[in-house]
């Protein structure tokens, strides 16, 4: 039998009175993966995570965590997943340590101080253990949210936009820590709109738009789906008409062209020269996730319009 998926959702639908947040999403995240869930605001990322975490009820469809149904078998499902919520929420009545102890107790772990110390030290929170939550900076509050999500040692960790509004230093540190948890066997699911981050961290990616999954593949495959090579030029003069079909971005004297292979770069340059357009700058590179993202979003818009 196939090993239970870390997270599996099938035909998940969530309808609100005025909007359909999820429109039949099916997706499987394997154990040990570092999976990225991308999409513009309102695509349904947080709704999907909320259903998996048991915070929201699906209108129809099913979700499981390590094989446990999130509704019928919620105790088993919830004790196996740790969620770092997107909003910077905290309880102003308590200190960091009290917050951690309560969170631990909610999961049924009453003598968990060694682990709490461990997690807090890892997130560099030990010095703030007795500080009231209110007095912490935004970055520190974010660390406490991560610590709270790890308090019951969940095999599956979901981070919903964890680095929104977080300074570079904390972001780097946080990723080093999360990467290590992943290496040690934890499954990580990340939603982010920093595409660069997803490209670096997540070997596999799902893209949501308008409540539907519009792409689900290995990040490398998604990147290869686009042109292998992009040529960015700054021209004085007009782009030759023959090259216009290859242009994927244009404006302000700059143009980005897509070519099938590095060998074709020369042809592009020659065509410009022959057309009398002076080349002021040339840059050759590969597509990044943002290009894939933009292209998929645009393709979906055309599909919807058609």
């Amino acid at each position: 039998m196939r090993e239970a998926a870390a997270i599996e959702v099938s035909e998940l639908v969530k309808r609100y009175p005025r909007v359909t947040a999820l429109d039949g999403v099916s997706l499987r995240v394997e154990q040990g993966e570092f999976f990225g869930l991308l999409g513009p605001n309102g695509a349904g990322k947080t709704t999907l995570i909320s259903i998996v975490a048991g915070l929201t009820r699906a209108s129809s469809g099913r979700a499981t965590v390590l094989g446990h149904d999130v509704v019928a078998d919620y105790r088993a499902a919830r004790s196996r997943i740790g969620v770092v919520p997107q909003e910077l929420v905290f309880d102003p009545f308590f200190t960091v340590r009290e917050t951690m102890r309560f969170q631990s107790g909610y999961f049924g772990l009453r003598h968990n101080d060694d682990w709490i110390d461990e997690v807090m030290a890892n997130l560099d929170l030990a010095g703030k253990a007795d500080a009231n939550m209110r007095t912490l900076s935004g970055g520190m509050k974010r660390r406490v949210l991560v610590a709270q999500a790890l308090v019951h040692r969940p095999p599956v960790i979901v981070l919903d936009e964890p680095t929104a509004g977080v300074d570079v230093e904390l972001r780097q540190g946080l990723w080093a820590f999360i990467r290590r948890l992943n290496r040690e066997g934890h499954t990580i699911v990340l939603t982010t709109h920093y595409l660069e981050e997803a490209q670096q961290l997540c070997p596999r990616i799902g893209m949501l738009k308008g409540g539907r999954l519009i792409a689900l593949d290995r990040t490398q495959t998604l990147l290869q789906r686009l042109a292998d090579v992009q040529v960015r030029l700054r021209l004085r003069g007009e782009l030759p008409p023959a090259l216009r079909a290859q242009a994927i971005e244009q404006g302000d004297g700059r143009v980005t062209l897509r070519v099938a292979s590095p060998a074709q770069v020369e042809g592009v340059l020659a065509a410009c020269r022959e057309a009398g357009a002076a080349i002021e700058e040339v840059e050759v590179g590969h597509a990044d996730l943002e290009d894939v993202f933009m292209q998929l979003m645009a393709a979906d818009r055309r599909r919807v319009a058609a």
Partner: protein
Amino acid sequence: MSGLDVATGDRRPGAGRDPSSPAPEIGSRPAPGRLTSLPRAAKSAGFRTLLAKEVLRFWKVSFQTVAAPVLTGVLYLLVFGHVLEDRVQVFPGVGYTAFLIPGLVMMSLLQNAFANSSSSLIQSKITGNLVFVLLPPISNREFFLAYVAAAVIRGVVVGIGVFAVTMWFAPPSFKAPLWIAVFALAGASLLGVLGLIAGIVSDKFDQLAAFQNFVIMPATFLSGVFYSVHGLPPFWQAVSHLNPFFYLIDGFRYGFFAVSDTSPWLSLAIVLAALAVASAVALSMLARGYKIRS
């Protein structure tokens, strides 16, 4: 060695780092450990922790949640007791101040039980930290019981506080102490459940305040705290008998004087019926995820 061993006391070197030493980079410390199995969870720990959290929450601001209502109760006693002591006798042989004290104790107890569950829940909803309670494997029943039990504790603590301060104004009598305890607990439970419902239903502080000021306050005020309904015209007597809070005050007072407007058994039956209905409503809201897991 698996990271789970930390649960058995195997602290990794550096786990108890001196907080004054320079902080290492995040992620530079030894790994928290690979997960092979889940830590063993204690059953019902969720309930106990949530109850402890709820009690600590009001206790941390006890000046506002306990001392203030006690002072309010004393002020009522001073004003009404002073004005009415020589003019009103409700029960034979019982002075007005003595009559008033149990009513004030019960009124404070009820209002504070309601305030505890309702304000805690709406604060958590509005600030968003309710998510910390919704993510763990806490059942609806545990959630319900923890909020209501904390409300009962706050109500009883405030009630005892009001009694401890006001009893010096008139010698107390305890003719049927068991009734006192039964009505105190049943009343605090009922209002704790009503507070939970109000907290679930309300989306804004404003709506909750409306519930508190336009339903709970009048109902407690007009339940016979300050008078015996026997002294009212027949129409208002009939209206008072429709107010479930009347039975709470009346039954509670019976415990002190062994005199009441209605039989304490009838009062208890009505209070328990109201508690059963309110609990069913609250539990069904929780089971449906109404407004909380929508």
